């Protein structure tokens, strides 16, 4: 291998949480501690020297980097204070940028300095949409509902209503779908671009020659589904010793996202598909509706999970075991903001506070849009990159590959 160290890469890692990476003196204590390490792949010992040698291409195409849970066992045991776990976090952050599309948006999400833009962009979009809803036929969204109307419709007429004109499609859902759907679509395209770039780079780097291509079904059945199952069970995550607390934070969070996804889907079907046939199905779900129960439990689980992770990270930073990085905190803040605004909006609805309720709901929409829009570039991206890396790890050793 002809070595061409990228000093810029080293400097970027150093600012993104890997400030200690140059301390590594290759004793391999981390590899002994790490459950991911095997005899032929001394992980993350090898990644540490690649990082200190600035071997960018080696690192971003290394599936192991994405498989790491950042459990902190290596950082805890490191006799040199090189914090391999933190360095790997920084490498992942860098890799997401590396594979990202569009690059400009991705770049924006890397720095706390850009926070006003990051928040401002969705805030303006939603505000503009809200104002725009007045220009679109039907009831204007640009109003604060009466207590009675608020009790009946909740936030379902935030962007107004045109049930008289387009019975088959709600005005509110039109706007929500326009905002969130476009955001999600950008995210999905971006993720697709990212993971395909990563997959190709990994194939090239591992010098894999495929025997034959797996079909979609084979891919899902052999690689994707087992990976998802493993994620859901947190099987490898539980092997972490130093920060076993993080499982008790991360697992509720994962389940909460699934619960909220299901509840949102049901709400969509009920209001906007079935509601067209049976208008009585419109309106907020009753408190004792099983789906509503799932939604509320999930919301609480989400806040609980994020609180555990928050606490955990604070503690680790206080003890010098983790670095204070925007990359890590942005996701925690964001999830916390989504949860807090969502739950608060619900409480205000019950409390019959339309003005405050609408404001909080607005914030909730802003945070949700941020979640969607920035997902492919921030720490949240791990849900796709990590899953794909897990698939790659399975693919690499499968019969599809010679």
């Amino acid at each position, binding site marked *: *291998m*002809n*070595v061409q*160290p990228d*000093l810029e890469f*080293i*400097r970027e890692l*150093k600012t993104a949480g890997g400030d200690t990476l*140059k*301390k590594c*003196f*290759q004793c391999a204590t981390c590899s002994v501690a790490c459950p991911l390490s095997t005899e032929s792949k*001394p992980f993350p*010992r*090898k990644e540490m*020297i*690649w990082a*200190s*040698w*600035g*071997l960018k291409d080696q690192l971003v195409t290394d599936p192991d980097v994405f498989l790491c849970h950042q459990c902190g066992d290596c950082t805890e045991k490191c006799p*040199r204070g090189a914090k391999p776990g933190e360095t790997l976090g920084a490498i992942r952050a860098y890799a997401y940028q590396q594979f990202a599309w569009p690059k400009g948006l991705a770049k924006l999400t890397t720095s706390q300095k850009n926070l006003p833009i990051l928040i401002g962009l969705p805030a303006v979009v939603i505000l503009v949409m809200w104002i725009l809803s007045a220009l679109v036929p039907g009831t204007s969204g640009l109003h604060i509902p009466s207590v009675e109307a608020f009790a009946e419709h909740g936030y379902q007429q935030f962007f107004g209503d045109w049930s008289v004109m387009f019975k088959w499609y709600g005005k509110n859902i039109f706007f929500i779908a326009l905002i969130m759907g476009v955001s999600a679509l950008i995210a999905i395209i971006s993720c697709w671009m990212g993971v395909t770039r990563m997959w190709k780079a990994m194939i090239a780097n591992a010098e894999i020659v495929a025997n034959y291509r797996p079909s979609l079904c084979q891919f899902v059945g052999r690689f994707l589904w087992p990976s998802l199952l493993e994620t859901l069970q947190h099987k490898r995550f539980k092997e972490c010793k130093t920060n076993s607390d993080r499982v008790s934070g991360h697992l509720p969070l994962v389940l909460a996202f699934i619960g909220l996804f299901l509840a949102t889907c049901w709400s969509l079907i009920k209001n906007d598909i079935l509601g067209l046939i049976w208008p009585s199905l419109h309106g907020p779900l009753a408190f004792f509706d099983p789906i509503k129960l799932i939604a509320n439990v999930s919301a609480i689980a989400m806040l609980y999970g994020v609180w555990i992770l928050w606490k955990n990270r604070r503690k680790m930073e206080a003890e010098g075991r983790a670095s204070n990085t925007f990359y890590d905190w942005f996701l925690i803040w964001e999830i916390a903001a989504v949860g807090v605004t969502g739950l608060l909006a619900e409480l205000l609805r019950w409390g019959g506070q339309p003005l405050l309720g609408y404001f909080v709901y607005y914030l909730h929409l802003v945070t949700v849009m941020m979640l969607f829009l920035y997902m492919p570039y921030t720490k949240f991206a791990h849900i796709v990159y990590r899953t794909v890396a897990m698939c790659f790890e399975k693919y690499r050793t499968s019969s599809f590959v010679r």
Partner: protein
Amino acid sequence: MDKKYCAYICSGCGIGDALDVDGLVSMVGKEMAMDCKKHNFLCGDAGHKMIAADVETGVNTVVIGGCSQRVMTNEFNFGPQTITVRANLREQVIWSEMKPAEGKEPHKEAKAFLNETAADYMRMACTRAQKTELPEPYKPETMNKTIMVMGGGIAGLTAAKEAAASGYQVVLVEKENELGGKAAGWRKSFPSQYPWTGLEENPLAVMLADVQGKASIDIKTSTEVARIAGAPGAFRVSFKSAGSASEWDAPVKVGVDEQELINKGEKADPNAGLQPYTAVDPDAVTVGAVVLATGWKPASVDQYEHLGHGRIAKVVTNAEFEKIAKNGKVPAKVAFIQSPGGKENDEDFPYCNSVTSMVALKQAQYVCDDNVDGQAYILYQHMRTPGHMELFYKAVQQNDGVFMTKAAVTKVEENGDKVKVFAEDTLLGKELELDVDMVVLAAGMEPVTLHEHSINLAYRQGPAFLDLDLFDGYADSHFICFPYETRRTGIYTCGGVRKAETLEETIDDATGAALKAIQCLESTERGVAVHPRSGDATYPDFFFQRCTQCKRCTEECPFGALDDDERGTPLPNPTRCRRCGTCMGACPERIIGFKDYNIDLIGSMIKAIEVPEDDEDRLRIVVFVCENDAYPALDMSGMRRNGLSHMVRFIPVRCLGSVNMAWIRDALSAGMDGAMLLGCSYGDDYQCHFVKGSEIANKRMQNIGDTLSSLGLESERCASRQVSITDFDKIPAIINEFVDEIVGMGPNPFKGF
């Protein structure tokens, strides 16, 4: 001195329970005609007072039967005018009693065996007391206390400064026309203080200011030492201007056979035009002791052809790179190769010690300091950064542009105006190819003594230090046990000539060597040995009327203490002597001895041992034990209650080199059944305090074995064994197996003649 004797036997520490002390007391009275007293706690106040009271009333020679001579030395010290002799009844008699095998009854005569052993030790001690005399120190007639420091580098400057600060006159000799040595060429130096992270300014200027202009330091630049004659306290130094030849250059040693050939004209005289080593230079400057700080030379690395030094212009040594750095900017991409062995072996360059690791770190720092995005690759098999230098390592490692990996460098190739380095077995898990502007090889630091005499002594044994190959060319007498010492008393090394070391270590080293030189001067003035027998006031006395000029003493002295006088008789230089007694062991005429240690004294002790006739259970084997390591090991074996055969009698000796074969003959002709020498290991990893003693003794024992065979005695009756001080658990096997061998051979057939 009229001797008045009294013997004392202590019954404490279990001696009274194990031995018939009253029987011993009466034996001493009857056989040795000495007063003998018994006490149950001789080293206690009451015991000490009892002896002190006797000393008050005129007793001046005291025999103590009790613990080992190695313990309670203060308790049994009754002043410089009283001779004290110890009999080791505790460690080597009662504590070393052979225990019966498990389940077996003790030998029915076990008690008798033990008492016989104790009685023999009392006999030997009393005999020694009768034969020994108080020493009279040898005080040189003229005593010069100037210290000459050879070499004006960091080591020499420090030694000169420290010696002057302690109040001694110093002559500082430097070959070059400027002081400073190698350090003058360093751009920066390693960190020497907290936080041990950044490079420091070269401290040479400050050090020069400390030395220059001092009245007590006479600086001679552009000067070399042609020869050093004489001895500590009165060395005669002939100077010459650097690079010139002088009739006073030290002559090389010419052997007897060689001299014959030269006389016949069949061989060129290597010393033609030179004054003989015995000649006295009227212009010589007298000094008392010498600090040798003549430094090191960068080792050649041209033999490692795959690394390309000498073939590729961009491949330089660390010393050459330092010169580049001193004169300007270093290139931006540099590979530092620490180990030349490729995939075959992981050894570093010879003579690198830990210094070249730190030099690589320092020079890598230059690369980063001089260039934006400078890149320094350190390809090592070992990085050695001892002590605080670990912090320096950590600090350099923090540079974004410093890349380190363990690697086997297989090839260096020219590639346009760049150089390509190939390495395998790296920590990156891949073979590497590096395109760099320059390659730096971590050449070692060879001591000047590897290539030249350096010290230029006008001694009979020649101008150089001996057996330099034992230490790869370093002049130490023993690196660990006796730092700074060489095999020439009064000459102490420091700096690069002693060890490949850093500036900081050199400063420590030079201070130590200066102190060692001061110790030498003060000891010499008082007439006592410098080391390792520090404070010993005895010295070898030669009865020259009977000397046959065989020169064995002269040849075998490990320290070159003996020259020849004008008639060819050995000429002792007592201030060069370390009092090991190797000359005494060598002398076939038995004319060399010390006041308290001589042929007659030990011979009489041997004869004092009772040798029963016709008793297979009572064979007698004498073991001469080196006092330095073997004797303590024997004591420790006793402390652990390891059983030793009751047939063995131990006699401590200064060094195995001092064992005269006459003693072996005495022992065997007295009817004893075997003899053994127990001393330090010799050869590559020798531990002999006197460097050559055990090796010489071993040779002598082989020779005497041949003599025994010709007399019809088994040569195996004489043996020599090596132990180190930590080998105390091996002592019983060594001793008892030898005894078993002797028992197997049966009694000495000459017993009773």
